[in-house]
């Protein structure tokens, strides 16, 4: 019987431990959970304050140097626009859009601003096969057009229908979406252009965790005014931008059927079987082959003298 000395045991454990430490943390996103960077910034949008002036749209257009819109920003007929039965959405020429909703619960119309919600665990990011998206510690979800192949999987994956694509471009079509004014403002600690421009203080910029407290506080103080939900607190694992409202969110066009955890969690089951198939299948099927062809004269792979008879 071979004895394992204490020294050998320790050396072995060290080596094993080191090996585990050295192995690359592949698919870090597919394991554990992530509820946002601790100091990630966010924006609280209070729908009760919005009057639909579209100043934020104009500010975004200017900040992001987008082309002039077909109708000027003080033209409110856009609220009646319907495209294939749908209200306006973000496009490659407008990263944020305000829509008007006539609701049952409120006599006055409700206005809802949409833009990228900058999810904690963005589905666009996790679905991208060239890693074009980055969630920055500041909380923005930014996009690198230099590596984008144009598969548009992120547009499929985004639960909020946000990313748009510059289909018109022949040589360099890319994804266009709100980036939280990352390069021009957020990086330097400044709020995005839309937040700063708002005359009604609909949007509050700050650390996501602080903003959540403020949102809860507002709902607690005015239980008659607000519905008891913060849209984006839990939806798809939490979003950087979230909403409070005086009408049930589904009446203002929000999708209430979204899962309360990151969408990538749905995909993890499949991702987990990948290494298993990769390692088990070769042994399994080579084993099947050996079992089912053992002793038979016309098996192909395990002999070299019969090559001439293939394809018979």
């Amino acid at each position: 019987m071979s004895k394992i000395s204490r020294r050998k045991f320790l050396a072995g454990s060290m080596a094993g431990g080191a090996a585990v430490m050295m192995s690359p943390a592949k698919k870090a996103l597919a394991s554990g959970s992530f509820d946002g960077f601790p100091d990630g910034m966010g924006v609280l949008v209070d729908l009760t304050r919005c009057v639909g002036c579209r100043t934020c749209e104009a500010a975004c257009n200017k900040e992001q140097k987008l082309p002039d819109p077909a109708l000027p920003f003080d033209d409110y007929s856009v609220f009646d626009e319907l495209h294939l039965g749908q209200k306006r959405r973000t496009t490659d020429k407008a990263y944020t859009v305000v829509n008007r909703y006539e609701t049952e619960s409120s006599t006055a119309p409700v206005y809802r601003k949409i833009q990228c919600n900058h999810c904690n665990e963005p589905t666009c990011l996790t679905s991208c096969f060239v890693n074009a998206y980055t969630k920055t510690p500041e909380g923005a979800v930014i996009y690198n057009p230099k590596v984008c192949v144009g598969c548009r999987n992120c547009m499929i994956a985004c639960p909020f229908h946000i990313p748009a694509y510059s289909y018109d471009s022949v040589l360099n079509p890319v994804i266009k979406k709100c980036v939280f004014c990352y390069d021009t403002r957020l990086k330097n600690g400044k709020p995005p252009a839309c937040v700063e421009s708002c005359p009604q203080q609909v949007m509050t910029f700050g650390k996501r965790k602080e903003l959540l407290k403020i949102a809860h506080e507002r709902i607690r103080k005015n239980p008659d005014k607000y519905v008891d939900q913060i849209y984006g607190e839990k939806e798809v694992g939490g979003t950087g931008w979230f909403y409070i409202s005086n009408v049930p969110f589904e009446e203002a066009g929000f999708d209430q059927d979204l899962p309360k955890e990151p969408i990538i969690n749905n995909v993890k089951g499949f991702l987990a079987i990948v290494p298993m198939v990769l390692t088990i299948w070769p042994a399994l099927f080579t084993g099947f082959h050996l079992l089912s062809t053992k002793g038979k004269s016309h098996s192909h792979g395990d002999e070299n003298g019969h090559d001439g008879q293939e394809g018979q």
Partner: protein
Amino acid sequence: MNKLASYGVKPHDSALKEDGKKWSLMEKLLLGLTLDQYLSQLIRNKFNWVLAIIFAIGIPLIIYRFFFGLASVTHSSYDYPWGLFLGFGLFCMVPLSASGFMLGTAVEIFGRHDFEPIERLALLNGLLGYFFAVVFLLVDLGQPWRLSYPMVYSFGPAAVLFLVGWHVATYLSVQVAEVSASFFEWIGFRRGYEFIRKGVIGLTVSGIILSTLHQGALGALFVYAPGKVHPLWYSAEFQWIHFFVSSIPAGLCMVISVSTIVILTMKWRCDKRFVKNLDRLTIALAKGAAMGLATYLIIKLIAVAHDNEWAYFATGWGTWWLVEIIGFVCMPLIILAYGIRNKLVNVCRIGAFLTVAGILLNRLNTALITFNWKLYQEIPHIFEVIIAITIFAIYVGTYRFILNRLPILYQFKEQEVMAEATVPAEEDLAAEQQHIPVNA
């Protein structure tokens, strides 16, 4: 060509001509006919005219797409970023091409050499299906010249599409290697052929691995869109299993369908072995397909039960789901079972065509028809439809071009091989042996 064959013109099918000389490449390309014979049969064939018309309209449109961008041929929809090119081209072509790994497994891994007469057809079907799925992808990608980026430049290993990309690329090379055996034989490069044959087990096993994963991964791609795909077609847990399992009957039935078309339109090219075995093989493949379909039906129901989606049956979408499941899963299953039980080959063939239609319907339902069910229905741009038809026509044309030439439907006759030829224990053994002295 059928006509020529009836006049006793023999197509090229061996290394050496009857007078002992080698065929030149030109002669091989012309199927062993003279140029005049070849051209006249080309013009006589009505199907070529159909193809010519499609190409005349569609190929300029494809060029137009590359000069003026995707916006010129699609609706440039933000809500339906994947239109027909991927909805049909990728998600339908790939499951219908699962035949390569199915038959490869049966013959090479399980040693079922009685399937050999149809193995090469299945491998070719796989290769072409994948290749044209990539062609569709290239037309659809915004920047197709960056196709290799996920391989060499920027990696997103946690994404399902990363896996699809890698696996389709690797599997395509595996399939090229598998089919190249026929090509090497045809071109007369004996050593290449032998080299491939030596690695065939490895190639087949990697084919199984890659197929399991990327067939499943295509389903898993839609798991990213829980709010968009209708719940009846969405299953967070089982989507990849649905896609993988349904690819099995899809691939097998595609082989039955293609072999049916081949035997009806290209009988001259099939050798005795193929023709003789086809009925038996069709029934055998139908058995596999029926088992796959039965499994698929049950796991589809389990998924509905698992997510407790029975209430949707009362809606229009539920009816549409029942149409798909009853009309295109249960019906072919019954037809196939009846055909198998009574050994009615043509009934099995009808079942196979219906199964293929069912797979098309399922993939289009997931990718386009029920996608964004809360928004609106996307009707593809007419140019998009024409381009999709054109690429499919190029696929059919290429398919036929290769079947006409490479030893897929017939066995290549080579002198040195004939001497030591042995044939699996089958009824055509005797016929085959009679055949040898004539040509050797």
